[in-house]
């Protein structure tokens, strides 16, 4: 049961007119029956059709739901192999060889909702509730800066004490933190937010505080399942959540991120839901999702539902959904998190992943207070990979990938529909490469262990070699990168293109 204070707050959050304005003939853009039909009727293993669709992906065009359904139905191993190869090519074309790292920072676990799968749910009495003060938030940020993180996703329960004003204050608090590094000053340069749906007026507060990307996962796009797993609280309102990113775009936040929690319903349906979501955003705003996320349901304190999901996604299907999402929304960043084990991360990374977290702790206050790696009663769910940032980066380097700490795009106007155009044309990927080299140089000099530094230097040499050979960089960009690289070696920080 919610307290009277919570109830009174909850009554004011949802503005019906900020749902209704997006509905068409009173309906949202997810038609469950149509999706089921598309999945059932899509051709199976038709080589010519699948190859045509792959070509469309390689041209960096958003696939239609029907085309996505065809890819979801592929079972022929050779055709699937072609899809995997294409997914890797799409990633390389749009984002080059880099992988961006970030850390989650959980600020609060008080919540008015009762999501059956979540450790934060209101009725879970085992959860130790806490809302970080601004001083606590700064301490957490400081601990993350000390290991070299530059980008955060900050996460909040939905509650009157961690509402929009609190969230905006935490963004500003994090940006204020500066920590002396070996050379120069370390800082968080991009704060992304995962928070509950809000009104447009409240979203503007986050916008003005300098939010990076605003991320809201629908969890499940299937209406009936949504209702079952969100029995009470504000989150029980499906369309309020579905249109949260529409409102964000109307509030001016031009980088938004979609996601589903895989395991609540049929994974193929959820992929289709994400495609419809991307299409609706593109049609209305000319801006698709900046990133897509596809977490799988993990164990959570006090949740039987999470322990025994009816629609558990196998590792093979998880790989498949990554491949299909990469092909279906080819321009979007794809986030794979430490929910997954190191083994699974290694397996699916090559098929299009662009961002991942490392040194991850998801307990409230877990970075600065250094309590045991995982404590279920302080976490939303249990993690699969708790390796350090240094270890993860070393592994990436050994795989030939360059870790990027780039946060340039949103600080120089490469946002919203502009970045969408640059991603689709492959231009942004060229900049990703340059900024990856510059930011990785910084990180290696400031934070790397000796083993990681050795592996990292090899990758940097290879990347610099490729930059030299690529005619795209002839017109001054290569020279400018060379100059910036030298200045960074000499101790300057935060130079970007």
């Amino acid at each position, binding site marked *: 049961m919610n307290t009277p204070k919570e109830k009174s707050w909850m009554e004011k959050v949802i503005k019906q007119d900020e749902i209704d304005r997006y509905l068409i003939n009173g309906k949202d853009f997810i038609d469950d029956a149509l999706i089921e039909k598309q999945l059932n009727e899509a051709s199976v293993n038709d080589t010519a059709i699948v190859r045509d669709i792959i070509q469309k992906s390689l041209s960096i065009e958003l696939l239609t739901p029907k085309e996505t359904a065809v890819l979801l139905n592929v079972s022929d191993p050779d055709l699937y192999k072609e899809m995997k190869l294409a997914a890797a090519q799409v990633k390389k074309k749009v984002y080059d060889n880099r992988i961006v790292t970030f850390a989650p920072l959980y600020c609060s676990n008080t919540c008015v909702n009762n999501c059956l799968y979540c450790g934060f749910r209101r009725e879970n009495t085992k959860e130790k509730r806490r809302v970080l003060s601004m001083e606590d938030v700064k301490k957490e940020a400081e601990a993350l800066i000390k290991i070299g993180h530059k980008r955060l996703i900050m996460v909040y329960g939905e509650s009157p004490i961690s509402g929009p004003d609190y969230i905006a204050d935490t*963004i*500003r608090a994090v*940006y204020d933190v500066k920590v002396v590094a070996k050379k120069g000053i370390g800082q968080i*340069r*991009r704060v992304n937010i995962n928070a509950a749906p809000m009104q447009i007026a409240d979203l*503007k507060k986050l*916008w*003005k*505080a*300098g*939010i*990076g990307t605003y991320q809201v996962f629908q969890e499940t796009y299937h209406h009936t399942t949504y209702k079952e797993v969100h029995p009470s609280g504000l989150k029980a309102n499906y369309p309020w959540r579905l249109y949260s990113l529409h409102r964000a775009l109307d*509030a*001016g936040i*031009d980088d938004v991120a979609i996601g589903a929690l895989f395991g609540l319903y049929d994974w193929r349906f959820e992929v289709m839901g994400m495609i419809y979501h991307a299409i609706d955003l593109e049609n209305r705003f000319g801006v698709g999702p900046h990133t897509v996320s596809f977490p799988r349901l993990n164990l959570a304190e006090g949740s039987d539902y999470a322990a025994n999901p009816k629609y558990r996604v196998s590792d093979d299907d998880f790989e498949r959904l990554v491949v299909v999402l990469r092909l279906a929304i080819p321009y979007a960043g794809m986030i794979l998190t430490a929910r997954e084990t190191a083994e699974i991360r290694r397996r699916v990374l090559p098929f299009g992943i662009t961002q991942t977290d490392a040194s991850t702790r998801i307990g409230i206050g877990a970075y600065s207070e250094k309590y045991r790696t995982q404590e279920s009663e302080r976490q939303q769910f249990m993690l699969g990979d708790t390796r350090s940032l240094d270890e993860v980066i070393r592994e990436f380097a050994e795989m030939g990938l360059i870790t990027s700490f780039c*946060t340039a795009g*949103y*600080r*120089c*106007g*490469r*946002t*919203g*529909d*502009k*970045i969408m*155009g*640059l991603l689709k044309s492959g*231009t*942004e990927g*060229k*900049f990703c490469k340059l900024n990856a080299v510059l930011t990785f140089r910084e990180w290696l000099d400031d934070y790397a262990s000796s083993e990681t530094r050795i592996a990292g230097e090899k990758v940097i040499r290879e990347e610099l070699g490729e930059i030299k050979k690529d005619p795209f960089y002839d017109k001054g*960009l290569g020279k400018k990168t060379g100059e910036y690289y030298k200045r960074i070696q000499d101790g300057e920080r935060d130079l970007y*293109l």
Partner: protein
Amino acid sequence: MVNETSIFEQAQAIFLSNETVITRLNRLADLMSVDKSMKVSFCEIFGKRWSFVAGSRETPSFDQKITLSDHYGILVEGDLLSDEWIDFLKREFKHLKVYS
């Protein structure tokens, strides 16, 4: 060669027009690019974030990044912006309504 005095008069007229902020800034970006190897983008500033508002969509890079007011900034690629232009823009942007 476009006469510098006349170009500032044209720019002034754009600022004084009744068009939307985006239309005015797009026209201004076009005007500034005429006869110069320069492309410009106007951005709204929120903390660290510079969000694209108007101007060149194809230009990912910049050679100059100048804050014009509490709310707006300009990114310039190619020829650098003259001091006259910078002073003019800073003066005009002080009065420009916030877009979002």
